[in-house]
């Protein structure tokens, strides 16, 4: 009897959460999946069951190119945010000794995030442009005699902006993991004769893995779905999956956009599953 009551009360307790998930996650997702099988013309979406949206999407070389391009952005951004994020977190966790300074410096990292990310992105444009600050400076210093064109409206610009925007997502969880590392483990490693690098490799990196995994999930999912950075920083010259979806929505091709969204969701879920196989992030939580 007592068992039944507790069972009932736990069902009761999870109901609000379940309801929220159902209304804001499950139902919208199901709608997207259903619409992805519908037909459409210029101005209407027509309830139907067709596979054309998927067969065109998966059969088109454009899709593969776009996915390759998006994965390239995600991979490059991941490499750079990870190396910068790890370094910053390491510095904060192990080199800064006082808690006050750790907090002060950590806050300092977050200050840029008080502005809108669109603004942070757009401010690169006048800086990197043909007649921008960087090119003018380089020319005035006599380092180059022609403005460097690759700086703006290029893959370089896209990755630069992504790294700038998302490095903090790496710093925070890695820093968090590192702060939980028992300092006596590091001392033990040193006592056992490990060099600084060996300590890093055998103690710090393995123990920071959950943080690295969480940061990676953040960065990769955000970059995979991004469209505005790609559009603005590549000058509309490169495509990403998110941009493709946004274009399809703009042209009222909702079923095609839904199909693209479903495929993107599956891709990202596969990547995340892979990451979770490698690292058990439950330890972190």
């Amino acid at each position, binding site marked *: 009897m007592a068992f039944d009551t507790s069972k009932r009360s736990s069902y009761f307790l999870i109901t609000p959460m379940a309801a929220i998930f159902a209304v804001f996650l499950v139902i919208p997702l199901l709608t997207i999946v259903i619409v992805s099988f519908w037909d459409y013309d*210029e101005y209407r979406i027509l309830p139907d069951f067709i596979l054309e949206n998927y067969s065109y999407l998966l059969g088109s070389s*454009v899709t593969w*190119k776009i996915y390759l391009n998006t994965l390239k952005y995600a991979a490059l951004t991941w490499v750079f945010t990870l190396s910068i994020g790890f370094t910053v977190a390491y510095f904060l966790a192990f080199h800064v000794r006082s808690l006050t300074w750790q907090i002060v410096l950590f806050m300092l990292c977050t200050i840029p995030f008080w502005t809108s990310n669109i603004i942070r992105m757009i401010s690169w*444009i006048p800086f990197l442009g*043909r007649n921008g600050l960087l090119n003018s400076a380089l020319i005035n210093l006599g380092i180059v005699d022609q403005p460097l064109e690759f700086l703006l409206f290029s893959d370089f610009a896209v990755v630069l902006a992504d790294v700038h925007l998302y490095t903090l997502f790496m710093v925070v969880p890695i820093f968090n993991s590192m702060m939980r590392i028992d300092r006596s483990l590091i001392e033990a490693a040193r006592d056992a004769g490990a060099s600084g690098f060996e300590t890093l490799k055998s103690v710090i990196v393995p123990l920071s893995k959950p943080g690295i995994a969480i940061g990676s999930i953040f960065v990769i999912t955000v970059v995979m779905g991004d469209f505005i950075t790609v559009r603005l920083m590549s*000058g509309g*010259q490169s495509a990403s999956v998110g941009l*493709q979806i946004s*274009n399809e929505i703009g*042209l009222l091709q909702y079923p095609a956009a839904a199909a693209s969204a479903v495929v993107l969701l599956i891709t990202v879920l596969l990547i995340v599953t892979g990451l979770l196989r490698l690292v058990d992030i439950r330890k972190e939580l």
Partner: protein
Amino acid sequence: MTIETKKSKNLLSDAGVSRRGFVKGAAAVTGAAIGSGAITGFPTIWAQNIKNVTLRQFGTGVSNINAVADKVKEDLGFTLQMTALDSDAVAQRAVTQPNSFDIADIEYWICKKVFPAGTMQPMDTTKLKNYQYISKLFIDGKLTPDSEIAQGTAPHTVGFVEGADSTTFASAPTQWMTLIPTIYNADTLGIRPDLISRPITSWADLLDPEFKGKASILNIPSIGIMDAAMVCEAMGEVTYGDKGNMTQEEIDKTIAVMIDAKKAGQFRAFWKSFDESVNLMASGEVVIQSMWSPAVAAVRSKGIACTYQPLKEGYRAWGGGIGLAKHLSGLELEAAYEYIDWYLSGWVGAYLNRQGYYSAAPETAKKFMSEDEWGFWMEGKEAQGDILSPDGKVMEKAGAVRDGGSYEERMGSVACWNSVMDENKHMVRKWNEFIAA
């Protein structure tokens, strides 16, 4: 200099008898007295309760001007609510939510798709006093008797239907008009004359290797493909039956040319919004690109040289108009007719002309413009004094001449109208290939 025709706000409650126009404004206005006359003498079928009428107009941003709604309230007494949407959303809403609007402000190519859906009603032109002033361009497609009819969705081809309940477009003008034309213009390439040393004469110059890495094209498929077609035709790479309605093969060839150019590094960027095009040009990232007239004005207002370059192949034109929702009847319908007739009566026309667009009834607009304004915007004459925008900003200094010249020169050399193709889906897919290439 604007001429304001002010009317007593509650003139309609005075049983509509004592209508007086007060004219104030520039000294140079000789036609002013006639101008005020242009809005008197509307049919007074409605009674006092016209003031309670609210008409909901929705459309694309260009002609959804709040000043127009204010002026309607002042001159006609009823309320006009404006909603601005992008052209795709406008088209969708006109078809799927027919009761959500009273007046649709749409482009002609949208009309071609929307009107057959039966959510709008044609207008009886005999009820419109100012119908006679509408430019011939919208009646039979010919600005002057010997001008050629351009390709694409030319407004007159979708401007009339066969009867009051018909949704079939008529091949010749009838009594039943689908849209009353309001705003239109001829688009071409914008260039930075200070950064380009040679004269630009052809659409083909967009892909000239001389401008490698300094060209741009607009990334709105239905319009971008037209600009691309103008370029390919000028280069002699592709010949078209009708640029406004290409075959799959023509689309494929056009996109192939564009992809080659993109791979060779011809383009600096593609733009999608008005301000992007302004920034690309003003910063010098781009020296030649597809552009819209007000964007050129915006670059110039920063003190940067920018020319809206007329080209020998002609312009790509677009036009919009206002039409009635099917559900309108009774008092609201009368108010809508009143509004549409008023639209043609000149005040709005002058306002649009001053923005660099064209009014559909140039004669009536003339009465609301100074001689200098008319000469600059419409006749291609040198400006005698400063030319002001409708909100009073200096757009051009004395001595300036409008790029492309007079109304007849610009609208007389339209090569193609914005349109929607039968192969639209295919075109959009190919366009995406171009962007992803």
